[in-house]
């Protein structure tokens, strides 16, 4: 990338009126994305945003790039096909917890497994926004919604854990309210070659207001958020005095200073799948902080690169014309 961006934030703002509820967390995510993009690309015509259906999935309409608002849950398939057809494009997929994990779960896990070079932004508000407030596969057990007046009965997914279980090569988590962090995750996703999965906690102030209140409340958040930095110890808390250790194979939160010193605290290693799994398991667990940042990152050949290689290799085969192919095999002449 050039040092000075040639494009401005406004270049990424489309002329469409934004249709989210006032106060929706989606606004912040949109704004940060529009802010970061001038830094990460010089050609907005090479950028494509693809989404499914949901409040979050309206995102492409507001980005002044190419965009495709597809159908519910199926955006990964469209994105994969596009990337297959033109691997030079920078393809971004925007989805919600319902779109991505309920109806679209299968496409998402296959995308992650294949490692197509696509960046996924999953807006997790733990609710169905667009259809007005049913519980989603990330809603907490017992959630009372229109469709579960006595409380939901199904245990939620932990999105980053599912992504890891799907062989995701880049798995990160951030939140709508942490603007700088959100930006940096978008940058990191862009840098990663392969499928990048960012879970973004997003407040739906209409149907699930305050779902992440403890993570955004000034008073509590320092004790609730664990910012991950590669190579740095996993410490958190208002006074930076809490840390994570492994007691055998069981993680624990400990206080630094008394029984434990900073040396005892686990050091984050983005390439360590076991650590990644441990961290993803903290999702919504009352005894652990929520880790924000890159949970796992490890490059491996992408689907598109390997496809390119095969295409090039195939081109080394003796060339044939259409007529050669039509005339191949045993033929005979009738006079």
């Amino acid at each position, binding site marked *: 990338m050039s040092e000075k961006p040639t494009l401005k934030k406004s270049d990424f703002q489309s002329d469409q009126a934004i249709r989210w509820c006032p106060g929706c967390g989606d606004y912040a995510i949109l704004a940060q994305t529009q802010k970061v993009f001038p830094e990460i690309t010089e050609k907005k015509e090479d950028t494509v945003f693809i989404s499914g259906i949901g409040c979050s999935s309206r995102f492409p309409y507001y980005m002044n790039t190419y965009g495709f*608002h597809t159908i519910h849950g199926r955006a990964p398939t469209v994105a994969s096909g596009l990337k297959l057809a033109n691997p030079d494009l920078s393809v971004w997929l925007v989805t919600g917890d319902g779109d991505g994990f309920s109806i679209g779960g299968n496409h998402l896990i296959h995308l992650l497994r294949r490692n197509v070079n696509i960046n996924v932004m999953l807006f997790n508000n733990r609710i169905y926004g667009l259809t007005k407030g049913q519980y989603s596969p990330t809603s907490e057990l017992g959630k009372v919604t229109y469709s579960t007046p006595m409380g939901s009965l199904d245990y939620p997914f932990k999105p980053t854990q599912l992504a890891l279980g799907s062989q995701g090569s880049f798995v990160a988590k951030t939140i709508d309210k942490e603007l700088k962090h959100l930006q940096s995750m978008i940058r990191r996703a862009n840098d990663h070659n392969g499928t990048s999965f960012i879970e973004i906690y997003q407040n739906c102030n209409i149907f699930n207001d305050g779902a992440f209140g403890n993570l955004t409340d000034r008073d509590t958040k320092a004790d609730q958020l664990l910012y991950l930095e590669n190579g740095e110890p996993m410490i958190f808390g208002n006074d930076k005095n809490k840390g994570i250790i492994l007691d055998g194979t069981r993680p624990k939160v400990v206080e630094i200073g008394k029984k434990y010193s900073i040396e005892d605290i686990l050091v984050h290693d983005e390439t360590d799948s076991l650590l990644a799994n441990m961290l993803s398991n903290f999702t919504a667990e009352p005894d652990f902080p929520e880790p924000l940042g890159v949970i796992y990152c490890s490059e491996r050949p992408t689907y598109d690169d390997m496809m390119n290689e095969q*295409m090039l290799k195939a081109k080394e085969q003796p060339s044939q014309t259409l007529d050669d192919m039509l005339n191949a095999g045993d033929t005979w002449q009738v006079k």
Partner: protein
Amino acid sequence: MAKKVNKETLDNVTIRFAGDSGDGMQLSGGRFTQTAAIVGNDLSTLPDFPAEIRAPAGSLAGVSSFQIHFSSQEIHTPGEQPDVLVAMNPAALKVHLSDLKSGGTLIVNKNAFTPKNLKLAGYETDPTEDGTLEDYYQSHFIEMSKLVKNACEGIDLSPKLVERTKNLCALGVLFWIYDRPLEPTIDWLKSKFKSKPEIIKANTNALNAGYNYGDTAELFTTRYVVEKAKLPAGKYRNMNGTLATCLGLLAAVEKSKMSLTFAGYPITPASNILHTLSNWKKFGIKTFQAEDEIAGIGAALGAAFGGSLGVTASSGPGIALKGEFLGLTLITELPVVVINVQRGGPSTGLPTKTEQSDLFQAVYGRNGDAPTPVIAATTPGDCFFTTYEACRIAVKYMTPIIVLTDGYLANGSEPWMIPNSKDLNDFEVTFEKESESEDKHQPYKRNKDTLARNWAIPGTKGLEHRIGGIEKENVSGNVSYDSDNHELMTHIRAQKVANIANEIPPTEVFGKKKGDLLILSWGSTHGSCKVATEQLLEDKYKVGHVSLKWINPFPSDLGKILLNYKKVIIPEINRGQLCYLIRAQYLIDAIGLNEIKGKPIGASTIVKKCKEIIDE
């Protein structure tokens, strides 16, 4: 050798090879076909696979067969009742004997009639010994396993592999009876098993053993000659529907200079399209085995958005899954070709049998007013032209299109006059050009003639735009909840499909241009309807035959043609789906002839029914 052998000339012969799945019947059939083609016969073939991968050896469920009809005249079907049945084991005999013409020739591998095999086939007594066969058929019980064992003595091969050559022995016997050259088969063996000289040797010996058996055994009193057919002059090859479909796609790529992205999910009988195209990467064809059929069409649509021709293929149940995405393709007006190789339905149905029952699904299987072009191939070789045309129309009109073939077309084959790529319709693609203007790009601006919207692809500067499944304002492409615009767009989408009628050449009528009865067929019923028409014409009936390729839209001249006949009959392998559409469109009391038996309706059935209708 001293024996006197008559030579008799026949117009046409139908042979059915039948045996256990492991007996190599598809190979015998294939080689007989190739030789018939080289000899210059017209021909038509019909393989029939068991539903199981490998049913237990010798079981009824494991019987596999291959039928070839070859002739010195033009033919259009793989024949109905075979003249010759080759049965490599008791199960094959049990399954197929009832189809053999009475007095027909029966050739049996005597060695396979072991007590175990007889029991598996459900025979109480050995039919080759209890005298039940000789009365009705010219039966030949040949010890093929023994023949090949002797023929391969001295070759360094396991007994199991030697036993496997018996299909070439059977082939040799038939080559002798029908006076065919062995060289093409020997050449083929040589190139196929290049690195395995023992295999070549064993198979060649087995082939010769069969041939010589015919020559020396006293059993066959007559040899038959089926002369070259008078086919239109040209260069020919034997062509099956799957390869023809793939070549049609390849032709689209080569003529248009577009890239093609094929995304599909395996399903019988469509999987082979994926397999074949996977080998054609050097032509810029990319293939993607998706996680399911929904992902298949989704990826094809994504590719189309990116400026590639998106193609997907499946069969009935898989097509059902694509309905929602077809709607999105339609409303975003992008070119995606959806190939349905039909099979028996509903649900999983009869996966290895052919049927024409997905026509309603093709025309109507989506939510909303969702008009989609539908085109159907009529013969294995015609799959080439149909697929090519489908691609051309999809791009020219910016629309999804459904291509209907079926299991019979896909697996069947016929001699195919090789077209010259120059003679194919022109196929032009224009993407919108980079724009420096400050005006917003208008993705739903349309071509005045076709109503196709312009195609602006990601990567092109200045044309950034957003599309999607919510109703779009015409021209601007913005999301619009306006009811007048919705009504307008609903009509435009329909009109666009209607406009395709301009691309359809005048309908050809075979036989009488006016008369008592029109036989209207679509898809693979073509062959039997043509044969039936020929017979009816010979019997002086005033009939004509129209073979429909386009089902949505119908050709503009079809309505007039229908009125030239007192009655219209529509033979279909379904409960009357085209019949329903024709009735609705033209308000004529078309009569359905419906036989749903997993194979094309026999020409004789059609002839009988037509005579009844006319004579009644």
